[in-house]
């Protein structure tokens, strides 16, 4: 049984150790969890839970009472009450920052950061309601995003950073009016969170902090790139593939995979999944046929050009790094933009998109087969299954693709099937087994 005085001393020492950088906040939490659950009395935990529950219930009831009488309250009282969520959440954050113990606790920091974020939103919403303000959801999101920019840093809250990124991404999607504009606000909002993300990466590149912030950035990148279709036109597939390939390669190059849960490092799995999904989608010639000429001179054109340049450079940099480190597995899917670039160039020669679709199908087939072959050699069944899924999906899509003639499809499927059987026979001979 652990000495109680030791635990009490440890509880007092931990915040100072965190502040001095001897242990990080996550390690301190794990130490607390290790000793707290076993050593502390069950009564103390129960009392804490009951007090929190009681406070929440009373608070909820008070809010409902205010809501019931909201119409009866004079406008200046309603305006004053509208500040309450903001002020209460600010008080909570200040108490966390001011207390060594709470500042060292991730639970307190995250709770304070997230409640501050939501407190800002609640106050803005209540003021809008009190004064019957018009405005769009887009206006509301932008004000919320800018007012809550410093929260992640001050509260040292990953949840606060994630919320900031999600609000920025939502704003971009709301602000999209069918004609892409250059939204400098999105660049500013997303860019302001980068130092926080870098700090999380340095703390633990495969930890939950960086993983959650990565998810936020994936949403931002998705929201940023989707509206560029109108301006980018035929370059749009190359843009999307460059972004996804750059993220995929960066995830594999810079985020350690050993010992991490799949969900903790979303960059490579999500970006890789997007690449495979887009390969399947762009295997249809009808989609290539629908891509218009790029309208780089119209609104959003500048951003599309910048996006293309940034995406291509990022992808090339990551591809070079992967090649230098000899990571062949990454090069396989990471070179997808090359195939898409070739397919894009072919549109000008064959506007119907047939040639472009053939290139995509051949590339997808090549990736699938390579995954099966290398997965078999390495004994990695997940990789084998992934490769077989890709090949199978492509084959199925071509089987049901009514935009192509039946005879060409039949011939192609038969030829590919024969090729598979021949390869299988050769592999079987190599390992000395009879098929």
């Amino acid at each position, binding site marked *: 049984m652990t000495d109680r005085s030791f635990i009490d001393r440890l509880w007092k020492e931990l915040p100072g150790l965190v*502040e001095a*950088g001897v242990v990080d906040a996550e390690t301190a939490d794990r130490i607390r969890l290790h000793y707290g659950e076993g050593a502390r009395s069950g009564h103390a935990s129960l009392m804490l839970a009951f007090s929190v529950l009681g406070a929440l219930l009373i608070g909820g009831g008070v809010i409902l009472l205010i809501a019931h009488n*909201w*119409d009866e309250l004079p406008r*200046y009282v309603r*305006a004053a009450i*509208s*500040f309450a969520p*903001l*002020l209460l959440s*600010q008080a909570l*954050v*200040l108490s966390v*920052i*001011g207390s*060594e113990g709470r*500042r060292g606790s991730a639970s307190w920091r995250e709770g304070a950061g997230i409640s501050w974020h939501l407190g*800002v*939103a609640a*106050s*803005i*919403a209540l*003021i*809008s*309601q*009190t*004064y*019957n*303000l*018009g405005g*769009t*959801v887009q206006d*509301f999101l932008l004000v919320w995003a800018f*007012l809550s920019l*410093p929260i992640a840093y*001050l509260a*040292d809250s990953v949840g606060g950073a994630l919320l900031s990124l999600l609000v920025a991404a939502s704003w971009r999607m709301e*602000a999209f*009016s*069918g*004609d892409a*504009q250059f939204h400098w606000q999105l660049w500013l909002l997303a860019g302001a969170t980068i130092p926080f993300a870098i*700090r999380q990466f*340095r703390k633990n590149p495969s930890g939950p902090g960086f993983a959650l912030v990565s998810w936020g950035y994936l949403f931002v990148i998705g929201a940023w790139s989707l509206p560029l279709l109108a301006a980018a036109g035929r370059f749009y597939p190359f843009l999307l593939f460059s972004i996804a390939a750059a993220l995929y390669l960066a995830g594999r190059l810079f985020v350690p995979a050993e010992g991490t849960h799949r969900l903790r490092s979303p960059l490579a799995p999500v970006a890789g999944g997007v690449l495979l999904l887009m390969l399947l989608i762009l295997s249809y010639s009808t989609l290539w046929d629908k891509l218009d000429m790029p309208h780089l001179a119209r*609104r959003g054109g500048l951003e599309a050009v910048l996006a293309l340049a940034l995406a291509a450079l990022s992808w090339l940099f990551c591809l070079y790094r992967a090649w230098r480190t000899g990571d062949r597995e990454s090069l396989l899917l990471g070179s997808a933009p090359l195939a898409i670039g070739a397919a894009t160039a072919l549109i000008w020669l064959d506007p119907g998109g047939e040639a472009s679709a053939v290139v995509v199908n051949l590339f997808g087939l090549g990736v699938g087969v390579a995954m099966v072959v290398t997965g078999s050699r390495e004994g990695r069944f997940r990789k084998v299954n992934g490769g077989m899924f890709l090949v199978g999906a492509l084959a199925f899509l071509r089987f049901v693709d009514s935009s192509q003639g039946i005879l060409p499809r039949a011939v192609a499927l038969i030829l590919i099937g024969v090729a598979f059987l021949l390869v299988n026979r050769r592999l079987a001979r190599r390992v000395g087994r009879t098929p």
Partner: protein
Amino acid sequence: MRPFPRRTMLFIAVAVCLAQAVAIGTSVFTYEEVLSKGTRHLFKAAPVDPYDAFRGRYVALSQESLRFSVSKEEMESFKRGDEVWAQIVTEADGYSRFTGVSHASTGHSEVRTRVAWANPENDFESSQEVGPKKPATLRFYVQIEPPFPRFYMNEAKAPKAEKAYRKFAGVSAHVAVRVKDGRGVIEDLIVDGKPIDEWLDDAAKE
């Protein structure tokens, strides 16, 4: 990167908290000033009841005269979502309406809003004569978003307000607004000469 010392963080946090409170407080002060010193306008309105996920139940309002005929060059200078100024004129019957739209403030009675769309349209001459229609005239229009699109009500009252309004067809409704320096704040929604709450209570008795 080591975090800042506790005192520095606290100082910065207090500064940010004050900045947030001042930003929101300034907006409250501005709206109160508009309500106390702004010019009163009455706009005809027709309420409909939707739901705003962020800000609760409200009555959607639509004002008249939101569409303006402009020249082709003017139409091409406006894009959907552009922030513009809509000029206001009070008519002899006491109601106000929008008379024009501009990119910059004109210094007259006006309110800020956004462009809903800017398109050319064919105007066919209306005629009861039998036979081929006369050639259409191509006109150019700009339409603005309603500057006063919503009036927040108690969640239980908003659908009742809409229901009652539909039931008593032909009843007149207008929104009382105070306007100052391009900002407009709704004072009240007036239905059949009475504030909406009072009208709703009377309608419930009938």
